[in-house]
């Protein structure tokens, strides 16, 4: 059994760990509030953007001439997967969940004989993926220096993707991120952004007769690249809210576990202290008796 001193040391160390996790939880809670706010505020933009694109794409009569970002390159051979993760750890299953989702998709692609290319955004995803898929990662982007998710970062990623698409480096682009549902639940998502999936969306097919200036095609070809940045921005916002949420609940758990551990160790400490006293007493008594 560990000596009294050892136990005492362990108790102090667990207690100081508990202090750290508690502080991290508080920080995450404060950041979560902000991240959630900006995720909510960012929603109207992406929704409106989506609406306009839906209206536009329904207005396009000739699918042949539709921009490639909408209709696709006509092939499905090369898949580009953009995996959005965090730059920092200690956030529970947040990164692991995205990676798991992405990996199962990669395995499926592999089985079907499709080619895979990966862009990782956030260093944690890169760390985890490079062991197995290192040769598939064509780009690793990290925004360690930006404090909050901002649109310009998203635009940078969007531009890289569009550039690669125009060079015909891939046919289909999918982004992986965590959707924020609530503090304890984040749902890993796989969303296809190129070609844009317009069919699955529910929409009211009203007889909207829009006037377009200039014509639909031109607006669409200007709008679609923006939409990609917008979708990525949305994913980044959801991700940062999810990250803080995941960190908060992970740290909450850690604090609780540390508390339990302190209790257990304290009981053990008291017990061995008691045992030592009893032992000493017995020794004294038996020593006195033998006199």
């Amino acid at each position, binding site marked *: 059994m560990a000596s009294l001193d050892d136990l005492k040391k362990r108790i102090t160390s667990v207690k100081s760990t508990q202090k750290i996790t508690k502080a991290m939880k508080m920080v995450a809670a404060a950041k979560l509030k902000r991240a959630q706010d900006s995720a909510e505020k960012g929603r109207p933009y992406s929704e409106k953007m989506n609406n306009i694109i839906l209206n536009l794409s329904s207005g396009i009569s000739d699918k042949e001439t539709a921009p490639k970002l909408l209709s696709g390159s006509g092939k499905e051979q090369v898949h580009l997967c953009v995996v959005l993760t965090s730059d920092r750890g200690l956030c529970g299953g947040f990164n692991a969940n995205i990676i798991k989702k992405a990996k199962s998709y990669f395995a499926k692609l592999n089985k079907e004989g499709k080619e895979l290319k990966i862009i990782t955004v956030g260093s944690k995803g890169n760390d985890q993926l490079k062991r197995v898929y290192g040769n598939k990662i064509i780009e690793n982007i990290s925004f360690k220096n930006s404090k909050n998710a901002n649109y310009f970062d998203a635009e940078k990623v969007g531009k890289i993707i569009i550039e690669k698409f125009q060079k015909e480096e891939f046919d289909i682009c999918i982004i992986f991120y965590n959707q924020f549902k609530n503090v304890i639940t984040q749902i890993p998502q796989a969303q296809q952004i190129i070609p844009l999936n317009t069919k699955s969306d529910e929409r009211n097919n009203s007889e909207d007769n*829009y006037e377009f200036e200039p014509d639909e095609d031109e607006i669409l070809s200007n709008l679609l690249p923006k939409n990609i940045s917008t979708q990525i921005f949305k994913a980044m916002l959801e991700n940062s809210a999810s990250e803080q949420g995941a960190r908060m609940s992970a740290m909450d758990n850690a604090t609780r576990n540390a508390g339990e551990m302190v209790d257990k160790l304290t009981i053990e400490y008291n017990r061995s202290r008691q045992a030592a006293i009893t032992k000493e007493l017995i020794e004294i008594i038996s020593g006195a008796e033998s006199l």
Partner: protein
Amino acid sequence: MSDEFKIDIVNPEKSFLSKEDVNEVVVPAFEGEMGILKDHISIISFLKPGIITIQAKSGEEKYYVEDGIIEFKNDTLSILTSYILNLKDIEKNKLLELLKNAEEESNNPEISDQLKYLADQKVETLKSIN
């Protein structure tokens, strides 16, 4: 009947502005300035760098935008833009910085004609504010 309609300006970060008492909006559409009044036909267009002027009951407001898409439908004008500034709040330093960036962009020989055109527009607009 009143001649007022609703305007929503959103940027990726937040809802920038929302007003219900707008009489007229002039936007720098891609093919020239465009005035929008109530009961305009549904329209989708996109913007070039320029000034949005909003005539509302509560007064006139001007905003500088770098790009954007507008949609007018059912007497609601939605403007989506990634960069917007209220002319009132704009500071001299900020303005000069924007102007410098825009001039650099426009003097870059490698950009396409369309980008060059947009950059020139930016320069022109910024100069006119100055």
